[in-house]
Each structure stands twice: as structure tokens, then as C-alpha cells.
């Protein structure tokens, strides 16, 4: 749950980019970091293996402005996608306010996407949260590849709950900020509803 520091008048929200390995979670954070003013961002912390795969988490703090006197800070995390890293993934998911689920549009990655989607459900339940009720945005990434999985089929496979969704090409930035803005607003609305 978001942490409100009433002394410093700050609202701190935690957004986690979740999804299968190599779906583009770290690329999202790298693009946001590259395109954001140094005045509103902290350092991008990445913890990769020797083969540049995220082993624990990536972290990017952003200040997005003020809401009625409270400074809004978003802490963006991406978790390791590989099934093997379930324990660190669950640790980072703890206290999450919103999830961006990054789907790889390559047809041969659908099993991995679905496995990660189910893994998110299990890990949220272990933390006492429901995947159906948490603020969540889908990002269908890698839409620039040849013959991507059609959007309608992706929506049918993953989005039976009708969460907001965006097409993206994270490596060139397409859809990255639309996704971020959408999850930010969904999270803030949700926090307001629960009395934060």
C-alpha cells in the first residue's frame, strides 16, 4: 500500500512492471529514464546478471508533481521475468500499488506470457491481493515485429476483465509514457477510493 509521509507531505506509490523474461520490462524503465528530466528522476538502479538479465529488480524513482500540497513520488520497479526467480519477484511485489503487465507480442512467447500471468495471480494471492482487483494496465509490447499476435487475440487471452491496455514498442518509446500515465492515474484513483 502506498506510503503517505504526512510530515514531509509526500505520497509514495510503488508500480511494478511484471511479465515474462525478455518481454521488455527493463526497456520500459530505461526509456523512461532516458527521456525524463534530471529534475524529476533519481538514478536508474539495475541489477543484471552477466548476460544482462534482471536478477533481482530494476528501480527508478520519479517525482510526477503535486496533488493538493502533497508531492507525488512514483517508484517504478521491474522484476526478473524468468520462472527461476520467483522468490525475489514476490519480495518486490510486496506493497505494490499497481502493476503494468508487459506482454511480448511474439507468437512463440505466448506460453511464457501466460505462465507469467498465472504466476502474478499466485504471487498476489500469497500477498493477500487479488489480480482481478489490483490497479493493472496491460502493455502489448514489441508491436513492430513481423506478424505479431493480433491485438484482439491478446485481449481475448489476457484481458477478460477489461483492464486498460496499450500497444507499445518499448525500445523506441512508443506507448511507454501512455502506459505510465495510465497506471499512475489508475493507482491514484484507487488510493483515493480506499481513503489514502
Amino acid at each position, binding site marked *: 500500500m502506498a506510503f503517505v509521509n504526512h510530515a514531509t507531505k509526500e*505520497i509514495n506509490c510503488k508500480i511494478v512492471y511484471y511479465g515474462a523474461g525478455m518481454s521488455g520490462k527493463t526497456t520500459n524503465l530505461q526509456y523512461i529514464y532516458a527521456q525524463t528530466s534530471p529534475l524529476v528522476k*533519481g538514478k536508474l538502479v539495475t541489477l543484471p546478471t552477466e548476460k544482462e538479465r534482471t536478477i*533481482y529488480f530494476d*528501480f527508478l524513482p520519479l517525482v510526477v508533481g503535486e496533488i493538493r500540497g502533497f508531492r507525488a513520488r512514483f517508484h517504478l520497479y521491474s522484476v526478473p521475468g524468468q520462472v527461476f526467480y520467483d522468490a525475489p519477484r514476490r519480495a518486490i511485489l510486496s506493497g505494490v500499488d499497481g502493476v503494468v503487465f508487459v506482454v511480448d507480442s511474439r507468437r512463440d512467447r505466448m506460453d511464457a506470457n501466460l505462465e507469467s500471468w498465472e504466476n502474478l495471480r499466485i504471487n498476489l494471492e500469497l500477498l493477500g491481493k487479488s489480480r482481478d482487483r489490483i490497479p493493472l494496465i496491460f502493455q502489448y509490447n514489441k508491436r513492430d515485429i513481423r506478424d505479431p499476435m493480433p491485438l484482439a487475440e491478446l485481449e481475448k487471452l489476457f484481458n477478460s476483465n477489461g483492464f486498460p491496455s496499450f500497444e507499445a514498442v518499448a525500445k523506441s518509446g512508443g506507448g511507454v509514457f501512455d502506459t505510465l500515465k495510465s497506471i*499512475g492515474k489508475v493507482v491514484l*484513483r484507487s488510493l483515493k477510493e480506499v481513503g*489514502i
Partner: protein
Amino acid sequence: MNAPASVGEDELVTLKRICNLFTSDEGVQLALVLHRDGQILVSSGNNKDVDLTSMAALSAGILAGAKGMANLVNEQEFLCVFHEGVRQKLLICPIDTSAILMIHFDQRKTLGWIRFQARKHMPDLVSQTKSLMRKFEVASPALASSNDEDFELLHFGNFSNAGGLI
């Protein structure tokens, strides 16, 4: 007329005073009290050479990971996590379920001394952070008077579709 005190000011002053007890000694560079989510509550010491935000997030992440390891060996949580470099050392301790103490020190101080001090001040740290969290919980909701227009005005990057979609 004095300005009204901010919520939890007394507790934060006390936490800062405890952190200052660490950093007033030679060899202790930094003492932080963090929320479990990695947000800094108070800091003391030489801040200018260290990215405190990243240090706080990593401390919280490391402690969360260590808790997972503790569970694997039937411990609820480790009492501290210690990192030792050639010259620099870090001690990370859970304060209670909501907060963390992180101390950065060098070869002029021993782990034993730091751990002893941390344990000595732990009861005060626990009572102050608990009291602080209780006050934060019952404070007026931060977003109560906000609306969608406020959220629209936030800057989630000014580069929407910068790369062009497809």
C-alpha cells in the same frame, strides 16, 4: 504565532536524534531510518556522496530478499544483514514490521560496536516508528479533496508517443 507542527514531527525529531548518535562518532558515515517500502523517514550524516533514494530502495529490497532466505531456514526474519567491503560496510536491521535501520560505516568502527549500538537503541526506534505509523494512519486522507483534474496535471513524462507507435 508558531506554525502548526506537522504530523509525526515529535517522532521524526526523536528518530533523527537517535540517528545522530551514530553519525556523531568518527567512522559512521550515514544512518537512515526507512519505511519497509524503501522510503526514507530520517537520515543523518554525510549525504552528499551517496544516492540516498537508491540506497534506501536497495536496503528495503535486500532485507525483503533476506526475509525470503530466512523463511527457507525456518526463521521469521534475520536480525540484521551485514555487507563488508574493503573499506566500507553496511548494516541493515529491521526495526519492526514497518521500518528499517541502515548504517554505513568504515574500518574505524567494528561490526560489534555498531551492532551493539543498534541493539541498544532498538527499543526507542521501535516505539517511535510505531507511534509515527499510527499517527500517519489516522491523519486526514491525503487524496480526499483531489479529483481527476489533479491527476491529469501530473507530469508522467512530457514525451508521450516520443518514439512513435509502430
